[in-house]
């Protein structure tokens, strides 16, 4: 955090730079580099990650532990903790404002204030471990309401709430002595509806809390009013995860990042949460980034996949394309490693070797020490990104699958 605030000043001036985006693309990550400065050396966790997210897509980042999936998510949100530093790259984001105007900006160059407006509001993130992420000392509903009242004006809602309440009292007791007064108040409030005055803090809190309960209902939480008043430790893991999802969806974000959001859950709950995400995506018209190492999850829920290896996106394609025609040797290795229900084998297939040490990563292609097709060029140059088929990008000198031997 520290490092980012420090570098704010220099970045601020370059705001005017005009970023271009293809239509439909809502997030474009270009050459993102993030490093961690540690005792043992500089860990180059991300070394030029490039990926695009289009509107309505569900994009998966897959790869082994330590390949930089989570760091990518945190870098997009600019939440990399010290000693991590985002060193280069662009994260271009198409922001739809309320009046449907589009603002295209590089998130890495925004000021800390502008970035805060994005976080939780335009791009929201759901973290891996529902046990440790909710704040233990605040009620679930309050934690959700906090985001809502932070990013939303709520003026209209507050006014509507007031009118509703007054009408209720009137309906209960039409002969009340101050009935006239109340009616006057209602009509006064109604006239303000076009241009609602800013609500008082108290009203705002109440409305936000009400919306929080609605959000909990939206994520299919049983008895949401009660849950909203409970503390996180009183909920089960699946419920907590749903509460976290409710929290991140509460401002109707354009992008929802799920950082291993289902890994800590057991399989049935995982399925529920995934279905929920898909439904919500349609409801809210957002795009989703799912970070996982579970290829089953990918196949079920995602439209596109980015395969990461050692801080690089080595292959990007639509899910169907990738599963049917993996081109990068690492991808095909990953797919082969999935045990199949229909076959009985003595020994599961694996990719030889270990994820490399990122302080002194292999030269050239980072996968070459483990690659069975590697030649001398692989250790000398980093392979360029190439579109082997429409919409199918690979970084490899020796692509396999249907495009094998083209080079």
């Amino acid at each position: 955090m520290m490092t980012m605030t420090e570098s704010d000043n220099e970045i601020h001036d370059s705001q005017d730079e005009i970023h271009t985006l293809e239509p439909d693309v809502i997030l474009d990550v270009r050459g993102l580099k993030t490093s961690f400065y540690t005792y043992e050396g500089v860990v180059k966790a991300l070394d030029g990650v490039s990926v695009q997210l289009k509107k309505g897509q569900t994009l998966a980042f897959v790869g082994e532990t330590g390949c930089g999936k989570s760091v990518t998510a945190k870098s997009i949100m600019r939440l990399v903790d010290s000693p991590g530093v985002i060193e280069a790259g662009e994260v271009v984001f198409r922001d739809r404002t309320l009046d449907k105007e589009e603002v295209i900006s590089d998130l890495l160059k925004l000021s800390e204030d502008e970035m805060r407006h994005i976080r939780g509001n335009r791009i929201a993130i759901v973290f891996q471990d529902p046990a440790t992420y909710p704040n233990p000392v605040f009620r679930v509903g309050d934690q959700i309401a906090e985001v809502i009242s932070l990013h939303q004006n709520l003026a209209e809602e507050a006014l509507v709430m007031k009118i509703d309440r007054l009408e209720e009292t009137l309906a209960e007791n039409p002969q009340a002595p101050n009935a006239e007064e109340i009616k006057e108040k209602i009509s006064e409030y109604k006239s303000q509806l076009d241009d609602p005055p800013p609500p008082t803090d108290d009203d705002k809190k109440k409305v936000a809390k009400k919306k929080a309960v609605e959000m909990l209902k939206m994520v299919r939480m049983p008895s949401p009013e009660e849950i909203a008043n409970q503390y996180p430790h009183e909920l089960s893991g699946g419920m907590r995860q749903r509460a976290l999802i409710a929290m991140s969806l509460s401002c109707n974000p354009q992008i929802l990042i799920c950082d291993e959001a289902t890994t800590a859950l057991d399989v049935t709950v995982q399925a529920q949460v995934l279905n929920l995400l898909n439904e919500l995506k349609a409801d809210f018209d957002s795009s989703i980034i799912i970070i996982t190492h579970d290829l089953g999850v990918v196949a079920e829920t995602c439209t596109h996949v980015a395969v990461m290896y050692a801080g690089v996106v080595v292959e990007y394609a639509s899910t169907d394309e990738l599963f049917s025609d993996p081109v990068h040797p690492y991808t095909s290795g990953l797919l082969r490693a999935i045990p199949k229900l229909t076959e009985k084998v003595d020994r599961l297939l694996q990719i030889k070797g270990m994820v490399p040490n990122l302080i002194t990563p292999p030269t050239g292609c980072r996968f070459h020490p483990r690659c069975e097709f590697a030649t001398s060029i692989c250790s000398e140059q980093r392979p360029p990104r190439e579109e082997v088929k429409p919409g199918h990008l690979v970084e490899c000198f020796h692509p396999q699958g249907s495009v094998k031997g083209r080079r």
Partner: protein
Amino acid sequence: MGELTQIEVEIVEEKAPQMVRFVGIFQSIIGLVAMGVGVLLLAPLVGPFIAGEINFGSFAGILILNTMPMILFGLWLFNIGRSVYKVFAHEFPWIIYANIIYFGLLVWIGGSLPYLAIGSLVAILLLFTPSVRSYWWKLFKEDLGPRMKELRYSLYLIRRSPLVVVGVVIILGYVFIALTVNLWAPYGPTERIWTETLQAPSPTHIWGTDQNGGDIFSMVMWATRIDLRIALTVVSVALIIGTFLGAAAGYFGGAVDEVVMRITDVFFAFPGLILAMAIVSALGERNLDNIAIALMVVWWPTYARLVRGQVLIERERLYVEAARSVGASDFRILLTHILPNTVQPVIVQATLDLGGVLLTAAGLSFIGFGAEAGTAEWGLMIATGQDHFTFYWLVFYPGIAILLCALAFNLVGDGVRDILDPKLRRR
């Protein structure tokens, strides 16, 4: 993924050479001798105590200060010998560590005891004879590799926290003063120059003189010995007793745990100084030994709780399960598997407590317990100086001595805690 590293399992031969057995027996004898020494320290007092010639305080003083630690220590040395006799290769290096500590202990107590330390040196030397060495050296070296790596990382962290370095330097300074003060102090600890009372700092008396003509500088320097010694004995004895009880409570649980923990609850219901005060006034006689005893009684529960907590955590670990499944005895598991893993927090606590004990002891001295008038002791010097507080140097210098010393222990304890804390030890 990848090839598994082959773990070389070294199977100890059924028949160990005579030499190894001999080293084991020799070490056990050293342990027995140590226990004997402990008993002998108490023996001359038993008669007079029964006859009512000496009071409970002095008797308990010798018992708690010298006899108990020595016997427990002897037990440990004996047990190491036993393990060596049974050829538990990874316990061989303990001969070195334990005998070095034993050596220090004997020198600390003094008298003719240091001659016994020759036995310890022989035991260490025997360990390096080729036939014995072949048993443990390789294992030791393998074991040392990762340890050295961690140590180097710790040293790196220490270098990065200058406050720890400052603390270590100050402590070393105090230890140096305590060890060599007799060589260079201008005046003796009780020496008085009756013609030069209450003199302001000057070249002859750089920190001035007190109302009886004692040279403040010399007295402060001499006091280093007494005060450091009190702090060290109190903490080490409290640590031994507390560890012993806490480990028993944590490992055996049930009634033992309940009893020990309820007792510590009661002890924690008093602020330390107040309880120590009550104990010293009950013991009747006012001297430094009674202060030390009172402070030990006050301090052991801290360690009992700390160790119990750690043992409770470690007890559930898989490696303990593994040790139990191969039939290791409770005592053995506790001593060789669990306790070594509780060492770090205990060491940190002990370092911090050295400062705390120093301050409390000085406080007790200040109230009027403690050493007889005229002794060179920091708390007492401040106490006598308060009647003449307009002569600031009477109070200022001893206080600075306490402050710096306690500060150094706190700096080191604090820093080392951060360095060892696995949560903060991210690379």
